[in-house]
């Protein structure tokens, strides 16, 4: 027997594969066109598009980190609290002295590091003690929030004005940037994430662990070590999202980003990742984040009340998973 292929069949399966990969993108185009038609002048303006992109940066960057976790059949509920912790750490470091460049860089790195450490803790507890990720991160969600409130003495921490505050400006200061620096950073991180997932041993191991942890072990993958790396990476990317959150707030706020983990997880799921592991992509997750930003923005433009937005976004999350299920059923 050879594995010669009937060409028609091959191209057919290719089309199906391509289309199923494009699902989230088609969804994005659909909601965009929909609001473009409903509210043409205001919504589709270049300025508003820039606004939407900026609004999706925080969830988008954190969703990149969450993508690694979810593909490996994990979950991280602590990212919202981590973002709050990150903003507090940044603000506190900025208050240490004269806002020199060194101090600013130190503050940014400090915020990222704090989240990275939380991520490492998640990974360590999950890998070393074999506790399910849901429970571990449910716990660390409270712990990170508690630490943030503790070191901030349950207050928002104001900080001197620094260039960090400009990261999320819709009209950035060097005008030639066109988009906010945060958007460019997000795109860079997208590129890095794609490269990691598709072209490195690490990425392959992430998929393998998520698809079948036993197979990964059988094939000599150091599963525990990889899990710690995955959650640490998620923490670091969340830390960068925290930096963007700080830029938005311009203060350290221990009560920021409550419930944001759910938006982040939703973005990844809308983007085509499977909560049962082994499937998902960085581009998809970013598109998922964009879909939610477009919906929020468009609804605001139309004056749709907040509660309706929540119902719509909830329906889209369920709908995305439903479409994914149907896709799998058709394959079988």
């Amino acid at each position, binding site marked *: *027997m*050879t*594995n010669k*292929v009937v060409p028609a*069949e*091959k191209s057919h*399966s290719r089309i199906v594969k391509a289309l199923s990969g494009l699902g989230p993108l088609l969804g994005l185009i659909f909601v965009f066109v929909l609001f473009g038609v409903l509210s043409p002048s205001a919504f589709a303006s270049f300025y508003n598009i820039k606004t939407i992109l900026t609004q999706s940066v925080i969830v988008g960057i954190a969703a990149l980190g969450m993508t690694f976790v979810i593909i490996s059949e994990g979950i991280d509920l602590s990212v919202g609290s981590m973002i709050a912790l990150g903003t507090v750490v940044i603000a506190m470091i900025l208050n240490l002295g004269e806002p020199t460049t060194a101090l600013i860089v130190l503050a940014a790195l400090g915020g990222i590091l704090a989240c990275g450490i939380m991520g490492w803790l998640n990974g360590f507890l999950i890998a070393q003690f074999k506790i399910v990720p849901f429970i571990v991160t449910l716990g660390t969600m409270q712990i990170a929030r508690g630490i943030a409130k503790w070191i901030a003495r349950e207050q928002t921490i104001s900080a001197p004005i620094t260039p960090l505050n400009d990261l999320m400006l819709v009209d950035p200061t060097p005008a030639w940037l066109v988009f906010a620096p945060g958007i460019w950073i997000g795109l860079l991180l997208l590129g890095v994430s794609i*490269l990691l997932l598709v*072209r*490195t*041993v690490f990425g*392959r*191991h992430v*998929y*393998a662990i998520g*698809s*079948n942890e*036993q*197979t*990964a*072990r*059988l*094939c*000599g*993958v*150091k599963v525990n070590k990889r899990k710690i790396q995955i959650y640490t990476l998620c923490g670091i990317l969340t830390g960068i999202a925290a930096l963007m959150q700080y830029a938005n707030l311009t203060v350290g706020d221990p009560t920021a980003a409550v419930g944001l983990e759910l938006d982040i997880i939703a973005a990844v799921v809308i983007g085509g990742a*499977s909560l049962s592991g*082994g*499937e998902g992509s960085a581009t998809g997750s970013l598109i998922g984040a964009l879909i939610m930003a477009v919906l929020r923005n468009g609804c605001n433009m139309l004056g749709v009340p907040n509660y309706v937005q929540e119902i719509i976004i909830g329906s889209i999350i369920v709908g995305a998973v439903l479409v994914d299920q149907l896709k799998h059923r058709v*394959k079988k």
Partner: protein
Amino acid sequence: MTDPIIQISSVHKSFGPVKALKGVSMKVHPGTVHALIGENGAGKSTLMKILSGALKADKGKIEVNGEVYTPESPLDGRKAGISMIYQELNLAPHLSIEKNVTLGMEKNSWGWVHSQGTQVEAILSELGQGELSADLLIRDLSIGKQQVVEIARALLFDAQVVVMDEPTSSLSAADTRTLFQVINRLKKKGVAVIYISHFLEEIQEIADHYTILRDGETVASGSMEDIPIEEIIFHMVGREVSELYPTSKHTLGEVILRGEDIQGAAGYPNEVDLELRKGEILGIAGLVGSGRSETVRMLFGLDKAQKGTLQLKSGSKRSIQYQNPQKAIGEGINLLSENRKEEGLALNLSLLHNLTLPVLKNYQKRGILDLKSEHQQGQMWLDELRVKAHNAHQRADSLSGGNQQKVCIARLLHADSEILILDEPTRGIDIGSKSEIYRLILRLAGNGKAIIMVSSYLPELFGICDSLSIMHKGYMSPKRPISEWTEVEVMHYATSGEQRT
């Protein structure tokens, strides 16, 4: 002869362009065991799914008790008295036997459940399993007993036809005997059993009639007494399997692996010594649960050993507790898992990604994978093992069992391991693929690989091994050349732990 309880006449079924069934006919009489035989992909499962109501036939007619039967759902099948027992059992492990047997059919008044323990126990003793109490939890039972519980469930709703799909593939010899006793009791009750299995010797023992499918068609049927095994195989494959177990000369080289005093938790394995030479095929026989898999998994580092030493060709003697799969693969040891679906393959990943997983770092250049050369190499191995697939990017779960197993073996070969540990390499795959795998194993031995083969199927051990050890309750018999064992001696040791002289 009585009227048939089931009469299937020229049933057709297509999935898109693929014709799965092209005119299958079959008659099953009450109180008999009817073997449904065919290679993987011959259409057995499709036919049984149509019979149970899970699929609808495109064309053809099925009669049950002389009445036309057109089930819309598995519930209709159940109501018509047709009960399926699948290879993977459908039981809730945390619930008791009674709760499992009555699940979905609990007798109740206003939602308050009445105990049916005595009724369930009556059915169990009818099946010759009177010692089972209805309060026992499923998870505390052996797989064999769990199967009996499934059969009891079928009887509770008066099944007239019980379909068993590969019922013995994960059973020990003793559990298989019990199952056969249960089947004989079903026959006495007038229940018809449709029995699907790859084990032809078993079929010959238990079945009264047979129907052989090939490529979606009935190619032969009749009484089991009139047909020798060679003829069954001939009908299944449409060609003569001249040498299912080919002979090949290969010479044994120096000792390449030596394990001493290997000890696992709870004495499985217990003080096991073993020695493997280059070019040797060492068989390990024994009942399921005798510690065979544990022993070989410890050599590979997947299961943790309590104590023992391991010595590879070049290296010095070292403690086996610190063995792990990364190290083992690095040292040229590789293992084929007995659980292809649970452990062997990442089913929703591509063939290629499964294949190259253990040795990805070979494709790494400055941290980035060379996808092109990975694809070339992977495709080469898929071709080499004649895996039937459209392309290397296909998902692993889209292949048949035999082809999945070939992908697993391709992975070992791609990793270029010197010592191959094959745990039940031919379980649940069709006879054509089996024969290919035997040839491959012999060719590998001829090329100087050392092979340990764990199997529950004695004919294949006798067919291809150079030497054989047997395990019983954690202990391992001394290794002897295969010519010095007989099947009777092996079964005797496996069941009693004693060597007959």
